């Protein structure tokens, strides 16, 4: 079996054009203009961000848009020590779930401008926007600490 074929390459290339969907389009348009919009569920009244057009617990369409501030509290986080392909970030770097003020669900994003060892659950953070804002979450470069006192109580029940 020394001449057995163990490997051959069969590349697959498929191109898709994917509409973002109604809720995500509006969210992305907001980002391009430096605004964060969530959607409030008509039944449970919770504000979901990013919005997806449906309340995941009630199963009803969500239409009402809520302009949110770009500040919030870290609910939990991790520190990444391995390089991911498309990343040009200096290691280690941190990612966190952030409960935006006025929102009921968390947003996952980068935390920068602070030594990773100082990042804490309950830490207050604010978005740092890109100068050239794309219609995507890349419009926010990262979040950074605000220096306000920690707000552990506000994240109770959010992880």
């Amino acid at each position: 079996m020394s001449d057995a074929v163990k490997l051959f390459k069969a590349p697959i290339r498929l191109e898709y054009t994917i509409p973002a969907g109604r809720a995500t389009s509006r969210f992305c348009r907001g980002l391009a203009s430096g605004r964060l919009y969530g959607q409030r569920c008509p039944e449970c009244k919770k504000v979901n961000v990013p919005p997806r057009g449906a309340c995941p617990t009630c199963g009803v369409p969500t239409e009402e848009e809520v302009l949110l501030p770009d500040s919030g509290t870290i609910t939990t986080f991790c520190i990444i020590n391995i390089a991911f392909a498309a990343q040009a970030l200096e290691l280690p770097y941190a990612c966190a779930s952030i409960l935006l003020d006025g929102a009921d669900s968390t947003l996952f994003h980068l935390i920068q401008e602070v030594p990773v060892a100082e990042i804490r659950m309950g830490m207050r953070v604010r978005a740092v926007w890109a100068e050239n804002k794309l219609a995507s979450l890349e419009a926010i470069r990262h979040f950074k600490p605000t220096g306000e006192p920690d707000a552990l109580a506000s994240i109770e029940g959010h992880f």
Partner: protein
Amino acid sequence: MRDVAVISFSQLLVDKAEANDAELVMPVVREALGRAGLQKQDIGFTCSGSSDFLTGMPFSFVGALDAVGPWPPIEESHVEMDGAWALYEAWVRLQHGDIDTALVYAFGRSTLGPIEDILALQLDPYYEAPMWPDATSLAALQARALLDSGRLSDSDKKKATAEPPKIVDGAAAVVLASGDRARKLCSRPAFISGIDHRIESHLLGVRDLSHSVSTEIAAKHAGCFEKSPTFAELHAPYSAQELILCDALKLDKQVTINPSGGAQNNNAVMVAGLIRIGEAATRVSNREADCALAHASSGPCLQQNLICMLEARA
């Protein structure tokens, strides 16, 4: 077997959806539940069908699940197949007797990628897929096999073509209920008198493509040959396939084929099979028929086939 019926159906077919998967699924789920007079918490089991390759993203069924609002947590499963097989799984689950209702849905944004090429990835990954035979070329092989079989009349020969179907985006939902619950919720439930599905070899070269052996076996087990359906909804994206299916199902000229227009006019991949069941059931429920046949297919050249017989009962 326990009596199980289709008690409501909803479908949405659009040339190009501007919705994400959850936004696409939500209207049909809400409409099907509404027509059955049920709320989400009344459902005992939920099952869906879809394929990740339609959107090119893994786990596409996960986001779509938001459409049913699965909270508090629900008993739920998913097949990476046409929704007709999700309906089969739900029918099996209802046989256990501890629950009386099930919600089945399917979705497919089939227009996002090059569907003719995507479907080539259903073939043998070592011997066939690397050559990228497109779906219509494979259907043409089958049409040619049928034409050369010598079994066709001159008028049928004109129909034995492999014109590509019109590809659309879509979603569909069906509510199933058992016995008395079905009768309570629906004035004329479409009872499933038999349902079965069978698969054939993936090797096109070992199959007689002009015959659908698996359809025949499934039909036999679903009790198709003892019934006289008024309508047959056949999941045949290509017209030659419709001829092959009619032959396997021994459908005579009395049977009206695809009154809905069928999958040749509206092929929402992964949804079209479930829609056939919904369409057939609707014709039973609205008294156009006492018995109707629904068929769903999967894989190249009708590799896998499901037959569902629906009927009205006193």
